[in-house]
């Protein structure tokens, strides 16, 4: 039986997005205070809406998305489960894979901003926010699969 390995998005990635949201909120507050202070109602509405949205995204939506996302990789298939309330499942046969693109950002060991783009016949699948080790492991394993498929074909 083929072994299936499961991966989850890195929690460090969630932390980075939260920090980005906090920084964006601070920027909105400062800009609103600078340019909208003459209209206090509009200023407080803008600040309120933005902070509430940032809180909802950072504390409720993203944790749900991160918790529900899984990537399962076997020799035959890649399965991506994602979504928030409506879960979507994507399946891709490893025999269809043309090549792999690995995206690693600076300091990605700490930030978890590593992505893998699986380019297959007619489409692509993106595996988001992986830890550095997971990204390297997936990339190596998929490249191994492509190579063994090539050898079988030839």
């Amino acid at each position: 039986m083929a072994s299936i390995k499961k991966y989850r998005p890195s929690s460090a990635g969630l932390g980075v997005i939260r920090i980005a949201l906090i920084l964006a909120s601070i920027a909105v507050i400062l800009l609103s205070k600078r340019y909208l202070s003459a209209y206090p109602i509009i200023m407080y509405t803008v600040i309120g809406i933005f902070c509430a949205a940032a809180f909802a995204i950072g504390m409720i939506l993203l944790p749900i998305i991160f918790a529900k996302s899984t990537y399962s990789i076997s020799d035959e298939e890649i399965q991506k489960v994602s979504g928030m309330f409506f879960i979507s499942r994507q399946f891709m046969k490893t025999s269809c894979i043309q090549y792999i693109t690995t995206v690693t950002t600076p300091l990605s060991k700490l930030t978890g901003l590593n992505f893998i783009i699986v380019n297959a016949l007619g489409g692509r699948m993106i595996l988001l926010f992986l830890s550095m080790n997971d990204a390297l492991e997936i990339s190596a394993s998929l490249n191994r699969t492509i190579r063994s498929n090539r050898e079988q074909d030839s």
Partner: protein
Amino acid sequence: MDNERKRQGAKTFLHDFFKHRQHPIRILGYTTRSFWLIIIPLTRNLIASRYDIASWLKGSWLSILTLIVIFGYAFIRWATISYTIEDDCLIAKSGYFGLLESKIYYDKITSVSASQGPMYRLFRAHKLYFNTNSGLRNGVDITLTVKMSDYTRLFGIIDPQSADSGSFTYRPKHSQMLIFSLLFSSSLSGILVWSTFLIQGSRIVDVQIQDRIRSEIFNFTERVEALLSNIPPIAVAVSLAALASWAVSFIAILMRHWSFGAVRRQNRIIIKSGFITKRYHILNRDTIVCADMQQSLLMRICKICSVRIVCNGYGKSNREMNILVPITTNREVACSLKLLMPEMPIPQITERPGVKNIFYHIFPPLLMCIAIPIGGAVALKLFPSWSRIIRFAMIIFELPSVWLTIVKLVSGFTIGAGEENGYLRLDHCRLYSFHTVIIPVSKISKLTLYQSVPQFLNNRCNISVQCSSLAAKKYIAKNFPMEQAERLHGKMSGEQSAQAG
């Protein structure tokens, strides 16, 4: 001793650094094209200051700083993008600051295209485009500008030329290329080339020169208008613009496909073309989705056609055409195709919709032919002072409609389909051109038989074929009797299950 080791270390580092980087000419490509706008006045200022560097720096420090930022950014982009040529794959760090690391195995590549313009030729550099059957419809998977040594090595791996690898060459005559350019140059593509030239040129050339060109064109139009005083000026202007853009398109196509040659070597097709910019394509024959023999009405009368192939990546960039045989006679097309694609037969047509329902094909253009004079007459009543322009517009729109009606009328006699040895042939008409498409049944991803209301009443249908490639379009042959379409579908299903078995 220590210094010697340090020097050796630095030498090795630099050697490794440059070995995996693109050709330095690429730095120019990463700058914004508008940087000429800064360089020209800067040079002018330097000359005006009689090469007094101090006063020049004082006067133009902001422009110099901007230039440094532009080149600094371009240099960083160049330095962060790297590639490694392995024996079985290419590893490339591309995208902004080399964030995307891709590993492409050579046998997954559908096409590799190389282009070398005069500037690149001077610096012995090549621009390479790598394509696979994945990703986005119009995107190239990897683009690299490489040195001559890497180009030779890469192409040596992808297209090895051993002594026992026989090759078959097809090379059209120059006269054939002239006919091809004449037939396939259009005003629209001319306008595209012309506008690209003007937009790029306007960034470099002085505004005064542009104004002068504009006034020259205007004067010329006025002179011609005086000569042909009975024709409305707008008609003269439109005709001149169309003629000029057609000429530009003709020259562009001729230059792009001059000295065209196609070679079949093992499972590859190598295509060379270009006069000023040399282009070289290596196509993986296993990934060619279909061959498409195209004809316009004029070509059909002269019994000549042009053969295109659909292979992901080929004919995608720089308004290039995906040609395999630029121009050939109907009699020679089978020989040319057999030379380059020996496994691909030209199946006989077994199913023909016939001329019984020919009205279905000509109805939409015929409606246009009738609607235009009626619309024109109404417009003449409403705006009598605009009569000359309206009459001219009527002629302009009526001519293509009549032409389309004739084309569709002919298509009623030529549409057909057939299947032979696992290859489907679909003869159909798209707008003004006739197409004979040959597709391996194994490469068909979707076959649809669909009916409109009149077709439902007549028990007829359209056949739509979709291929398993990003590069292929949908091919639609119209108005087949339902039993013929189902028979064809049955044959193809049988062939597919036999192949699977």
